[in-house]
């Protein structure tokens, strides 16, 4: 058996028009309310995420507007230290010769310009280009004393 409320009774044309207009008005009002709530929600979301986006862009070397200084929350552990734009010290280098004690820093800074442009890890677990080989058997000529890899007793 059907509910009479699901199937309203037949109405006069004038009354139906009035009811239709009333329904249209109510729908318009609700749509306006929904739009307002959505706009407020989007604005809130943008306000929270924009500083973090700006911080990320600045960390990657992109110029950021001075007015959008990221808040401390944007520099959370595990995120900040990965944003690097420096060459890895362990990469192969073909830097210009710079004699003198300062050559270490200069050569490292000049090493591999392509790598310097891209964010990269300071350390990797990449294998060597050439696998170590067994030393050849002793010949009649005396072999030079090898340098030794052994856990050291000092340092720290």
């Amino acid at each position: 058996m059907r509910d009479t409320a699901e199937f309203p009774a037949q109405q006069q044309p004038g009354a139906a028009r009035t009811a239709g207009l009333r329904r249209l008005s109510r729908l318009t009002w609700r749509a306006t309310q929904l739009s307002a709530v959505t706009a407020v929600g989007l604005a809130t979301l943008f306000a929270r995420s924009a500083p973090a986006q700006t911080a990320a862009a600045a960390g990657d070397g992109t110029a950021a507007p001075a007015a959008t200084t990221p808040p401390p929350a944007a520099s959370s552990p595990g995120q900040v230290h990965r944003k690097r734009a420096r060459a890895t010290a362990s990469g192969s280098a073909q830097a210009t010769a710079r004699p003198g004690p300062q050559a270490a820093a200069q050569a490292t800074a000049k090493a591999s310009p392509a790598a310097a442009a891209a964010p990269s890890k300071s350390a990797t677990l990449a294998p060597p280009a050439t696998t170590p080989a067994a030393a050849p058997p002793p010949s009649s000529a005396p072999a030079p004393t090898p340098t030794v890899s052994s856990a050291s007793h000092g340092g720290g």
Partner: protein
Amino acid sequence: MPTAAATLGSRTFPALGTFATLLVTDPDALSLAHDVLSGELAAVDAACSRFRRDSELWRVSHAGGRPVAVSELFADALATALDAAELTDGDVDPTCGQSLVRLGYDRDFARARRRTGPLRQPPMPAGGWRRVELDRSRLTARVPAGILLDLGATAKALAADRAAVAIEAATGGGVLVNLGGDLRVAGDPPPGGWRVGIADDTGFDASTARVQPRQIVMISDGGLATSSTLGRAWRRGTAELHHIVDPATGRPARTCWRTVSVAAASCAGANIAATAAILRAERAIRWLEDLRLPARLVRQDGTAVSTADWPEGGEDQPR
């Protein structure tokens, strides 16, 4: 390329509480190479020493959790240490400084090992590397209060990497830098490669950096490092201790390996892998194979296992 290995220039001297050996293919470049290496070692020591109160590491670790401006070198060293932690899922953790202090390793090892009385404090786990903040663009670092950094697993290897690359750039020749067993080569090697002895540490003479190698291998590029539970080991009361700390417990790692030697593209990478392998025990074999890292792992009983085409044979020295 040099024509004979006998023409190598060589110098060994004390550095970073251990020894440094410098080999160059052009003997005439030895003096310049030594200057570059000495400058790099002094800079790394001033930045990364856990025992110097004027070091950047000390300043950052005792800033009460405030961000501190740091040098490019220290930022590089800390970034390498944090990468090591990330690459090893936290096995190689740079926040083990207080753990080592609790174990009695609170000063230069030569002095620390002289104290033999029982420990007074319980072990302390690592402070947590994810809590350390480094901003490479602003050159600032922040270490939470109570955490003491220890860059021992990476700083010396990083110094070898930096020095070798810089010496090659300065001299144009081939170079090998060996810092207490962490070594890096750069430039054209001697014919056949650089001769490197692989040792298990017993019989090591710290005064002369001499040790009887088990095996001799030839390397042409990259780095090679050895980690061991034997090298820096000491006794407090009845406890036998060593410097490779399990970050989860703050105690010396319990492991099936006494020595692990690894070859990698860099010395830092080799040392990170070798240290992590000690901590990972049997799991290390599969891990190193998956990474294609040639390695030689020596069990506590002296038997050796190798991975990723580490050479067999060589010139094994009978003991």
